[in-house]
């Protein structure tokens, strides 16, 4: 199978999606991230391995957290970082994606972190650049958000040590969520025996079972005895009545509150990719509880993104 992420030696040249990564490759990224996590705890939070390299954050869609953590990750590796908010610049003047990227390549950038509202945008760019240029997908449409999938796997491993006896529940808008797709693929590859998705029918993709998940429409049944609860953000723009009646109604039927959390295992962790809507998908008290690992996820995200950039930049061909 053609896999644009890998070079002819089978090394990672781009990170475009979780699909197509081997278990060994994912574990290599997580193990390397473990080393970078230690660097974030030091006084001098910087190592020189990407010195002289240029990382371009090209965001065709807005983001604060993902862009910031990629920026911090690149800076801690000593790279020069350029942030381009393309949503408000050249695209509106009619430039094509490829022209935007080629202009940046002409300025000698080495790594591109790309977010785009169209699924497949990062693949498209990766298939049009020279082999010494590396593309990292920071989210494309409903398709994939691989670094989020990796950092969530890293977080689960941190708290649960291994993957092969876990029950993981993903709750919320699976249909529109690239985070959910990346997580389902990552957890399947890593050998999680039971992945559950919990959502109303209107927020589930057609034939979602084929991804290797168990479907629950009733959150109380779905959360029973799980080790990990991954909440997804309910996007406000979906709240117009077509897919969901109202925020209050959603919180009543699918929101995570303490009594629902009590249905999971006692030491279950609660995750959320952010930004969260308190009182819509998650109760404020639960988000701030002992079981919540939402802020550690952000910290781990930097280490995982450092790991991905360092591994990509180290693949000379």
């Amino acid at each position, binding site marked *: 199978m053609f896999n644009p992420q890998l070079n002819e030696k089978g*090394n990672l040249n781009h990170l475009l999606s979780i699909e197509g990564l081997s278990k060994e490759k994912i574990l290599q990224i997580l*193990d*390397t991230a*473990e*080393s970078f*996590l*230690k*660097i974030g705890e*030091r*006084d*001098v939070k*910087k*190592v*020189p*391995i990407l010195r002289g390299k240029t990382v371009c954050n090209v965001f065709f869609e807005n983001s604060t957290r993902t862009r910031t953590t990629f920026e911090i990750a690149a800076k801690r590796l000593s790279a020069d970082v350029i942030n381009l908010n393309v949503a408000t610049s050249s695209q509106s003047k009619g430039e094509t994606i490829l022209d935007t990227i080629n202009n940046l390549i002409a300025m000698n950038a080495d790594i591109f972190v790309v977010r785009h509202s169209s699924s497949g945008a990062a693949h498209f760019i990766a298939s049009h650049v020279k082999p010494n240029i590396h593309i990292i997908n920071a989210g494309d449409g409903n398709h994939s958000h691989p670094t989020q999938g990796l950092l969530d796997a890293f977080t689960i491993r941190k708290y649960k040590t291994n993957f092969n006896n876990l029950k993981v529940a993903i709750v919320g808008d699976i249909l529109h969520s690239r985070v959910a797709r990346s997580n389902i693929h990552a957890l399947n590859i890593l050998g999680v025996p039971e992945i559950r998705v919990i959502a109303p029918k209107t927020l589930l993709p057609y034939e979602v079972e084929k991804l290797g998940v168990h479907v629950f429409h009733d959150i109380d049944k779905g959360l029973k005895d799980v080790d990990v609860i991954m909440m997804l953000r309910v996007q406000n723009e979906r709240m117009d009545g077509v897919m969901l009646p109202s925020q209050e109604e959603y919180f009543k039927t699918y929101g995570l509150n303490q009594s629902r959390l009590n249905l999971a295992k006692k030491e279950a962790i609660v995750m959320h990719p952010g930004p969260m809507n308190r009182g819509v998908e998650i109760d404020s008290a639960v988000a701030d509880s002992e079981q919540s690992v939402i802020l550690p996820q952000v910290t781990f995200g930097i280490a995982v993104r450092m790991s991905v950039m*360092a*591994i990509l*930049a*180290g*693949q*000379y061909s």
Partner: protein
Amino acid sequence: MNLPNAENLIESLKNKINAIIDSNTVLIGVQRGGELILQKILPDLKEPIATGSINASFYRDDFSSRGLKIKNTPSKIDTEIDGKNIILIDDVFSTGRTVRAAMNEIFDYGRPSKIILAVLIDRNEQELPIAPQIYIEKINLPKNQHLELVFDKNKKFIFQLKESNV
């Protein structure tokens, strides 16, 4: 060729280190060999000494040609090193590039007043103005032969010679 007896070299290194340590000393092992030596000699030192461990992968000067190879555990220096006398321990000294990388990393943790390099073997392949102040033996080997400190089946340290193409 006959490789030197690693256990004897470690014993000699321990005696030399014991002669110069005091309460201001911090011992830092360079992974992987130096860290193994440090753990071996630590219980027999004349006084308790603060320690750390360095994995200089992120500081190497051959990253762009070799890529990132993380085999060992992350660096761990939990003790204060400002104003300390550091003894940096490694098994084999060859070009000096690993030591340069390790020193760069140490200075990201603080400003020691002094660093001494102590090794078992000096291969006489120095490429930088860095040399061990303490070494037990000097050996000349072909460039493609790699000397590695490992355990034998009786849990004793031995040196093993490996051919490499880098």
